[in-house]
């Protein structure tokens, strides 16, 4: 693909994305697009830590739920404007990310152990959220309905544009990471921690920064979720379902690539919508689909769809050269 074609393609998709709400007739498709883009954004957050940093988290719900609860509690208990919930969610998600990273990386957890401990952290928070009063315990929290931009309840189309902006910001951020010292060192740590350390890279500090960043981004996603649905409870916030959906997105699309999470989220949600229409909307069925998809992807396309494109492009090189 030539640079010109690439740019044209990008421009066209940008225009299409901006014009989408004008042509989408039903609220259903706007909501579908919102969810797809929200998970493209969350998947990018996971991708920073898991794709570029090589640290697979099985508990990103920890950050998502913390962001969501922070904004919801600030609003219901302290009357904070939900717009301020966005930075608050980032702060809360980042702080929890930093703490989780400090604990697990300090003691040298990696690979499977890191995945297990993140899962356990999320579960601890789920149990706590179920038990303490200020999260509304098992009943959950309702955010009062106050439509309008002022209270960050701009309606489906407004939400669509907000999450679209977030996705663009996250794409830009991933591009920055690929072209910065931070990203170069992070990828070096992913590839070989000892070799990176020998070259003066402080792997521990980098990983903590990556998980804090990823946590902050994920926290913002949680805030948006709670503003859209106006409700949160412990299993929505901290349940394994969210963690799995977040990690599926970049794995399907392509780990450690800029567009992987976006591609992954579109494919995942389109396919799961299709599956829902064929098999009906029984509880659990879409997660069966997610589970099978995860197995199939890792089995046949471990580099994700972006990896498939890249492999194809590489195969073309000798012909052109």
């Amino acid at each position, binding site marked *: 693909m030539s640079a010109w074609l690439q740019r044209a393609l990008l421009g066209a998709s940008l225009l299409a994305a901006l014009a989408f709400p004008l042509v989408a007739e039903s609220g259903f498709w706007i909501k579908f697009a919102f969810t797809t883009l929200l998970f493209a954004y969350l998947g990018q957050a996971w991708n920073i830590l898991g794709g570029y940093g090589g640290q697979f988290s099985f508990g990103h719900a920890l950050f998502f739920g913390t962001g969501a609860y922070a904004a919801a509690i600030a609003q219901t208990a302290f009357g904070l404007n939900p717009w301020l919930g966005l930075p608050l969610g980032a702060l809360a998600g980042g702080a929890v990310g930093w703490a989780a990273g400090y604990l697990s990386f300090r003691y040298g957890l990696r690979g499977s152990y890191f995945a297990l401990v993140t899962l356990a952290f999320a579960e601890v928070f789920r149990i706590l959220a179920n038990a303490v009063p200020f999260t509304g315990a098992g009943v959950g929290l309702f955010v009062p309905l106050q439509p309008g931009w002022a209270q960050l309840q701009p309606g489906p189309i407004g939400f669509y544009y907000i999450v679209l902006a977030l996705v663009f910001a996250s794409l830009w951020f991933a591009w920055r990471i690929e072209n910065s010292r931070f990203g*170069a060192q992070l990828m070096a740590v992913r*590839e070989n921690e000892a070799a990176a350390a020998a070259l003066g890279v402080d792997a521990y500090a980098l990983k903590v920064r990556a998980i804090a960043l990823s946590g902050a981004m994920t926290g913002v996603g949680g805030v948006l979720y709670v503003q859209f649905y106006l409700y949160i409870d412990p299993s929505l916030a901290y349940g394994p379902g969210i963690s799995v959906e977040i990690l599926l997105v970049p794995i399907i699309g392509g780990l450690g690539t800029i567009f992987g999470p976006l591609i992954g989220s579109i494919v995942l949600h389109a396919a799961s919508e299709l599956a829902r229409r064929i098999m009906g909307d029984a509880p659990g069925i879409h997660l069966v689909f997610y589970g099978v998809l995860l197995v199939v992807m890792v089995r046949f396309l471990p580099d994700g769809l972006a990896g498939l494109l890249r492999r194809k492009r590489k195969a073309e090189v000798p012909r052109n050269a």
Partner: protein
Amino acid sequence: MLEARNVTKRFGGLVAVSNASLEVAAGSIVALIGPNGAGKTTLFAAMTGFHKPDSGSVTFDGADITGLQPHEIARRGLVRTFQIVQPFGALSVRENIAVGAHLREPNRAAALARAGEIAIRLGMGNMLDQPAATLTVAGRKRLEVARALATSPKLILLDEVMAGLNPTEIDEIVPIIRAVRDAGTTVLLIEHVMRAVMRLSERVYVLNQGRMIAEGTPQEVAARPEVVEAYLGHGAAQRIASVSA
């Protein structure tokens, strides 16, 4: 410039390095030799923070660096390579070297440019965009050196960068190492290729079963009976002496 004093490193009951001392003067090329399993790599690791010495001290550039983290030691300008090569497999050669360059150069474009220069200096100019995982053994050994050099070290520890290379490749790398020194970087190398050790180094240390058994110029060390014995087995020096007598 670098001084290890009475360094001991144990793994469980096994004493890998015992009371070993060595000194590297600024601007020199020093070799550390010894039979397989003598503890050379362990001593390297103990000096660069990858193993914490059980006792003894390491001083670099006038400061005590014993027990510092590997990255802290690298930042001070003491950088090692790995005997078992450790490339960042998914990254290109240029990106690999740039990780080293980033130690002193925050700017991405400048680091990549510097990586290109160093690759050319080491004769890797035509491999820049190749993924490191696709390199040959010789290429990977060179990449180890290139990455370490890119950090602009004051002292570079080269761990068997010639092992597994053919004679032509060795002849290529010897002048490269000399050029590194001439450009201002002190060199300490572990090497089995005696031809290269004799040609390159000004001073040689011999480690055997964790103990430093000899030091001196290459010629002096090669003449020492205990060194010959360490390599060829007990009694070898006497047998050689009796044969030549």
